[in-house]
Every structure is written in structure tokens, then in C-alpha cells.
């Protein structure tokens, strides 16, 4: 089991630490926050390959963190001699990880006596002078000259690794259909290969070679002869490919109920990959990396996939990146890790009750992900509350809430659950709700465990000024002003109209240019959430 991942200077991960959960890790965050880079780093460190290529073959300037590279060239141009950027990745495993016994030692930056693997990308000492000369030139591109670099792949016992350590298998599952035309990508092949023993592989290989020879000697021979007879063939003839590139693995394709894999629907393809990867003995693949399972899948396929992953997990350690609240809620958001600049932050699971986790698993449409990703959140009951809040904010602060990193989320009366979640994520959150005929103190005391002045507060209008948003608006604006804003005839009761046409009223208020006053609890909420 992976206990810690330390990354320096690799792509978006400039200085990064992740201490994953032993079973399930759901990585969420904005686009470009580095979620998929984490999966990439884990796979790279475990098997020394990246997208099927050996690390040393794939190494290119874009491996290096942009900020570090910029800082390096700034220093260089300022006439200083900064040390060349290096990439360091350390993957720590628990001492009980099967198959990792020999990777144990203290060759890691923490001097920890544990199994692990590291990757270092650093200037090749054999090219030290060339690097110095190169960097001394003027007008060089602001890119790391990786031709003069080397990739070192070692275990914590300081042993050089040349292939994936036996027993530390991992499986990557992504729903994207990249890879070869047959739909069977490198990872899928790797998976299939694990089922075929070396001996069988040799037998298949031999039979395949013979079959190709038979075709060459049989039907193809006639064609070949005709080409030669008709002349001008310059010695060109036709033969089955017998070179090493024509291995049987590329000619074999999996079938599901007699349908070739490539012709299956996307959902079935992914399901097959998952089943192949996870039905095996878990010591063959202890780590499962799932990238955005919601991509390319219909909702029902996604549902099936998530159920499959949860039920087949066994003793494996699973890493999933996702943009979907559904995935997050279904697998249990207590396993959530939110991407931050220096590493993913876990939820303080002590602060979330099992009841809440179960609640969200059933209410899997709940927008937990938005709450998790937002810098600050405002939770309101309905669409009219959302519109009014946004308008009030814009008028008072001069910018839209989202421009200040504030996400306004409509969650009905489930604001208390949101508070609990925000508590566990240590987020600033404002929850606005109707008083429904009870004083604000009543609602606040019901949620007191999750409230903290300046971090998590509730904003509720007093009973005296009305049950819901609409009477609250009427309590601070005259009926005449609202009648104009809403474009109502004199014989229509403003309060009744607003109560019966909430969304429509809000829409009209939002689009009006008339200057309006906002209820006190909304103004307080705006000041609270916009404070630094």
C-alpha cells in the first residue's frame, strides 16, 4: 500500500506531498489542478513507463515544473549560477506491502526505513561540461535541455530498477478511447499478457509464426510469382511480416461474447477492462488507478461501473480522479482528497458522521463536488434566493460572486449537511435559509456543532420581517417600488404575487434597473463571505 507520495518539480506538482488512504482515494479539484498527474506519477514510479514508453525515452522539457524552470532561467539571465532543476519522485510503501520486501531501505529524503521507489531526473554527470557550456550561451530557449539529463529509477535499498518489481502490479482504467485503432490499448494488452504464461506465449508465438509462413508459402506465393512475371517489380515481393514487430500480441484481440472488443460500446469496454483488472488475485495488481470514470459513459453505465469498482476492490488501493459529484457521493465522500498547491487535502473524517455519508450516498445527485472545489461557498434554498443573492452581491461589491471565488449553490433545505461538509473541509461557508416561522436562533442552535464565527455562519431573516425571501424584500422596500419593478397593476397584491410567482419575481428584480434595498441578513452574508 502506498503510504506517501513526494513529488518535486514534476509538471504541475512543484512541491507536493500526498498521504493516501489505504483503500480508496477520490481526487477532486479544478481542471489543471494536477489530479491526473498524480495517477501518472504513481504509474510512472511503479513501472518506469509513461503511456507505454520507458521514462528515459519519453523525457522532455515539459516534464519539468513551469514555475521552477522560469525561476531557473530568470536567475541565469540575472547572471547568477543557479543549480539546474531536477525532478524527484518518491513513492513510499508500507512495510507489509507484498512483493516490496526487497525495495526496503533508507534511500529516501525522509531517511525512513520502508520499501519504496524513487525516480530522479537530473543532469547526466557524463554531460556536465556540455550542460555548463550550453547554459553559458546567450539566447537559449527557456527549456530544460533534457538531452543532457538522465533518469534514475531506484528502490529505497539503492538498487537500480530495470523493470517493474514483481508483485507490485497496477492497473490503469480510463474511459477514453485512445490507443490503437482496435481499441485495445497498451494497458489492455498488458492486462491480457498477465493471463498468458511465458510458456504459452512462446507456443502461441511459434504457432503464429508457422501460420504466417504457411500463408507466405501458399496463397501468397502465387501472387508473388505473378508480380515477378509481370516485370518491373524491382525485386519487390509480398510476404507475411515475420519481423519482431509482428508479434502475436498485436494480432490478438479480446472478444466479449464473440464481439470484438473494439466494436463494443464504450460502457462495455470500460466494464471489461475493470473486470479483467479487478477479478484477478489482488497480489497481481495491488493498485488500481481510475481516471475520470464519468467521461464517455452514460449515467447508467457509470452507475454500473462504480458499483463494480466498489464490489471488486478487495484489498486493493484505489485512486480515482473525478469531476462528478455522483461518483464522489456513491463511493463515499469521506474518501475525498481535494487538490491543493502542495498536495491533496483529505477530509477530516472525524468531523463527518456515518449518517451524513450514507445520506449523500443515497442522495447521489447532491452537489458535494461544487462545495468541495469552491474557495468559499454560499448555500441558498431555491433559485430565487440564488438570483437575488447574486444581484445584491454584484450591486454591493461591484463584481460577480464567482469572480471572487464564491460559488453560490442551491441546495433546498439541506444546508445543514453542507455545513457539516464545510466543517470537515474547513471551508468558509454562508448558509442562507427561510425562517419558516421560527426565530433564527432556533435554526442556528440546531446546527451549532458545525458553526464557527468567521468560518461557517447561518444567515436568516427574523420572523417579524417574514417567513421567506419575498416578505423580507417587502419589509425593506415599499410595495410601490416593487410594484413598478414587477410591472404589476394596482389591483394586484404585491405580497401575494411574489409568494405565488417566486422565480418570476426574482427574475424581474434581477433585470430591473431600479435601485432596491436588500434584506439585512443578505447584506450580512455578503460582508461575511467577501471578507478576506
Amino acid at each position: 500500500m502506498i503510504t506517501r507520495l513526494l513529488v518535486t518539480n514534476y509538471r504541475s506538482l512543484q512541491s507536493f506531498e500526498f498521504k493516501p488512504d489505504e483503500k480508496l482515494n477520490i481526487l477532486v479539484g479544478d481542471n489543471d489542478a494536477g489530479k491526473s498527474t498524480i495517477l501518472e506519477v504513481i504509474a510512472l514510479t511503479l513501472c518506469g513507463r509513461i503511456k507505454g514508453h520507458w521514462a528515459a525515452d519519453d523525457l522532455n522539457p515539459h516534464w519539468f515544473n513551469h514555475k521552477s524552470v522560469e525561476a531557473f532561467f530568470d536567475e541565469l539571465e540575472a547572471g547568477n549560477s543557479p543549480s539546474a532543476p531536477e525532478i524527484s519522485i518518491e513513492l513510499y510503501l508500507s512495510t507489509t506491502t507484498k512483493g516490496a520486501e526487497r525495495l526496503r531501505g533508507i534511500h529516501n529524503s525522509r531517511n525512513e526505513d520502508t520499501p519504496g521507489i524513487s525516480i530522479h531526473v537530473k543532469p547526466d554527470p557524463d554531460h556536465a561540461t556540455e550542460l555548463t557550456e550550453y547554459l553559458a550561451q546567450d539566447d537559449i530557449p527557456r527549456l530544460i535541455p533534457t538531452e543532457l539529463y538522465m533518469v534514475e529509477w531506484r528502490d529505497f535499498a539503492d538498487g537500480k530498477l530495470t523493470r517493474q518489481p514483481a508483485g507490485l502490479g497496477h492497473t490503469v482504467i480510463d474511459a477514453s478511447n485512445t490507443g490503437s485503432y482496435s481499441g485495445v490499448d497498451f494497458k489492455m494488452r498488458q492486462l491480457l499478457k498477465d493471463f498468458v504464461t511465458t510458456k504459452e506465449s512462446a507456443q502461441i508465438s511459434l504457432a503464429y509464426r508457422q501460420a504466417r509462413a504457411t500463408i507466405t508459402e501458399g496463397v501468397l506465393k502465387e501472387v508473388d510469382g505473378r508480380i515477378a512475371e509481370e516485370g518491373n517489380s524491382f525485386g519487390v515481393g509480398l510476404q507475411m511480416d515475420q519481423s519482431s514487430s509482428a508479434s502475436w500480441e498485436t494480432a490478438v484481440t479480446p472478444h466479449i461474447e464473440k464481439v470484438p472488443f473494439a466494436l463494443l460500446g464504450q460502457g462495455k469496454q470500460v466494464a471489461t477492462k475493470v473486470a479483467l483488472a479487478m477479478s484477478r488475485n489482488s497480489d497481481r495488481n495491488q493498485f488500481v488507478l481510475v481516471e475520470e470514470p464519468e467521461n464517455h459513459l452514460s449515467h447508467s453505465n457509470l452507475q454500473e461501473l462504480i458499483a463494480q469498482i466498489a464490489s471488486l476492490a478487495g484489498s486493493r488501493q484505489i485512486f480515482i480522479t473525478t469531476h462528478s459529484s455522483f461518483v464522489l457521493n456513491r463511493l463515499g465522500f469521506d474518501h475525498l482528497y481535494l487538490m491543493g498547491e502542495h498536495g491533496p487535502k483529505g477530509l477530516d473524517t472525524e468531523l463527518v458522521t456515518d449518517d451524513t455519508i450514507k445520506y449523500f450516498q443515497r442522495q447521489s445527485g447532491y452537489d458535494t463536488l461544487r462545495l468541495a472545489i469552491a474557495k468559499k461557498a454560499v448555500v441558498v434554498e431555491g433559485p430565487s434566493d440564488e438570483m437575488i443573492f447574486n444581484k445584491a452581491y454584484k450591486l454591493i461589491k461591484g463584481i460577480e460572486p464567482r469572480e471572487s471565488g464564491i460559488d453560490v449553490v442551491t441546495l433546498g433545505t439541506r444546508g445543514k449537511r453542507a455545513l457539516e461538509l464545510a466543517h470537515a473541509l474547513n471551508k468558509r461557508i454562508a448558509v442562507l435559509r427561510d425562517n419558516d416561522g421560527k426565530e433564527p436562533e432556533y435554526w442556528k442552535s440546531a446546527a451549532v456543532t458545525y458553526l464557527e464565527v468567521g468560518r461557517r455562519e447561518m444567515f436568516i431573516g427574523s420572523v417579524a420581517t417574514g417567513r421567506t425571501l419575498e416578505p423580507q424584500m417587502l419589509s425593506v422596500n415599499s410595495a410601490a417600488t416593487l410594484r413598478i419593478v414587477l410591472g404589476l397593476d394596482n389591483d394586484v397584491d404585491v405580497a401575494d404575487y411574489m409568494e405565488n410567482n417566486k422565480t418570476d419575481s426574482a427574475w424581474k428584480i434581477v433585470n430591473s434597473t431600479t435601485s432596491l434595498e436588500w434584506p439585512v441578513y443578505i447584506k450580512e452574508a455578503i460582508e461575511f463571505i467577501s471578507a478576506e
Partner: protein
Amino acid sequence: MPSRVQLAVAGSGKTSSIASQIEEQAARANSLALTYTINGQQEIASRVSNVRNGNHETMGWFSFLTQHIVRPYLPALHPGIHTHGLHFVEHSGQIPRNRSGWKYYFDDTHQPYNIRLSLLAKQVLEATNDAPIHRIEVIYDHLYIDEVQDLTGNDLVILEKLMRSSINVFITGDVRQSVLVTSRSDRLNASYRGVNLVKWFREREADGICELTFTETSKRFNHTIARFSDLIHDPALGLPATAGSFVETSEHDGLFLIDDDHIEEYARQWKPTLLRVMTSNRNLPDLEVINFGVSKGITRDRVAILTTDPIRKWLANKTLLADKSASGFYVASTRARYSVALVVPKADRLYSRLHDDFSGIIQLWSPNE
């Protein structure tokens, strides 16, 4: 469970005992066999044909010290050194003087010096509270050590830690055959050098960390050779008497004194392999010639040993040979199935002065027989 130590005479099947134990291991067990010489490693590897499911490895003592003790934990003593390979020297005179710190143990390319490796390994163990032992305990279920008589000095400190570990340890060797040692310049445990290693094991047995057994029957040679071989080492060591279970006979069996002048005729008649202490310019018959040290592990029908002064003194007076000479001579004397000839000047004179212990064992050979 205490470790099992089996001290066995030449030709008693030590290596095949290891090989059969490996084959009988429980399914999925992981085992490691260690021995000092490359010949020894090949010997074990070639006899282990079929290990069920699990994994068996055979490696040399120095590789073991490097890979499993020094390398994983070297940063505890010398951070930044990435050890690889081995810098082999015969003695410390071949290492430049005034190297201190990490340079005392490594050359400039970070290759460790063989003769200082076990000292370094001991220091790593001390600095890490025996972390390497805990690491090895997780990797291996069984550990076999062959030719244990080659271990000396600091090796014994490491050996003891292995014996005290949770690994199932089996150790075998013949203390009488200590002709190679891992480090001649290692001064630690000097009183247990060579054949005296048996004392070390007896003390460990008294401490309850090992069970010591002796295998006294050699399948290689006849009983006369066995009786002769028992006379070579100091009787004060109390090593059990050897039995030779090789019963085939020929026209010429047992121990013989041969005169220097008769060596050509003897060679023509019996075609022995010639064994000698070291290379010399002496004119020798056209026969296979092997030095004592290198003859370890081989078996021949007949050998003829070119004796030294100390050997001849011992034949006359039983003046004890120095430990190392005794071991070399013991190895040489235990190579042949049928006959061992001792080549001496003036054989008839020595024969008449032979010590009483040799009566009934050594015969005088003359060409007209």
C-alpha cells in the same frame, strides 16, 4: 528455533544436503544460499533442480553483505555513497594508505573493498539497530550457509545476528578445511580463526543459539585415509573421528611414502594428481598439478603430495602444523578415493623414524613392488 550447524568432513555431502533441504522446503518458501567461492555457488545452483513455487537464490558472501546489509542502509553512515560492484584486493597493502571516512571502505568510484566489507556491514548494523536483519527476515524464510569455515573476524558478528534472527538458518562447513578466508587483515575474533571456529560454535551452542552436529562419515575415501586425516589437526580440539565409507578397493590403497627419486616411476605406474603448497620451478612428471588451496572441492582416484619441512617433522615427531598449513595439508590429504602418496626425500630413513601414530597407516613404496 536455534540455528542448525553441521560441521562435516570432506566428502560427506555437505552441499548436497543443502540442495536436498532446498528441494524439500514448503511451497512458496523463499530461500537464500550463501557461500564464499564462485565454485561453491555454481555447485549449489546446479544441484537445486526443482524448487516448488517459492524462490531460491544463491549468492556469494560479499554480494550478500553489499546487497542486503550495506547498500539499503548506507545513508545511516555515509550518505551520498551509491555502492556498486566490489573492489577485490588480496590484503590491505593493496589499498592506498591514509584513506579515512567513507574512503576507508570504498575506492573513489564507490566500489567497496572486499576485505573491509564485513567491518562496514557490522557498523551499518550497529548504526541502524539491526534494521538490515529485520529487512532480511521479511524476505527469506530459509538461509543456508555453505563453507562456513571461510568466514572470519567481523563476518562472525554478522553470522551471529543471522543465527539469532527469525530466519530458519542452516550452516555447514568443515573447519578443518579453512584455506580461504574472506579477509586476512580482519583482526577481530582472531582466536577463532581456521579450525578454531569450532570453539566459536561450541560457545554459541552453550548460549542456546545453535545446535551443533558433526558428520563424520566421508563417502569419498577409504578408512585408512580417514584415519590419517584425523591425525592432522590438533587433538586438543576434540573433533570426532572420521569414518571412510568408500569400500571399493584397487591394487594400491591407503597411504604411502615415496622417495623423491622414485617419483617418475610412481607417476608412470599410478598416474596420481600432484598436489603442492605453491608453484615452484621444480621439475615435475607430466601429471595434473594442483596447489593445495585450489584443490578444495575436487575428487581424484589418487594423489601424490609434495611434502614440506613442517609436514615431514610432523610425520616424524607429530610436531603440530601451524593452523593454516594444517588446513591446506588436510584438504590435500582428503582428495583421493584410493591412495595418497607423500613424496619425501630419503623415504626409507623417514619411514624408519615415523611416529607411532602412523604405524599400520603409512606404507613405504618402492619401485620394484
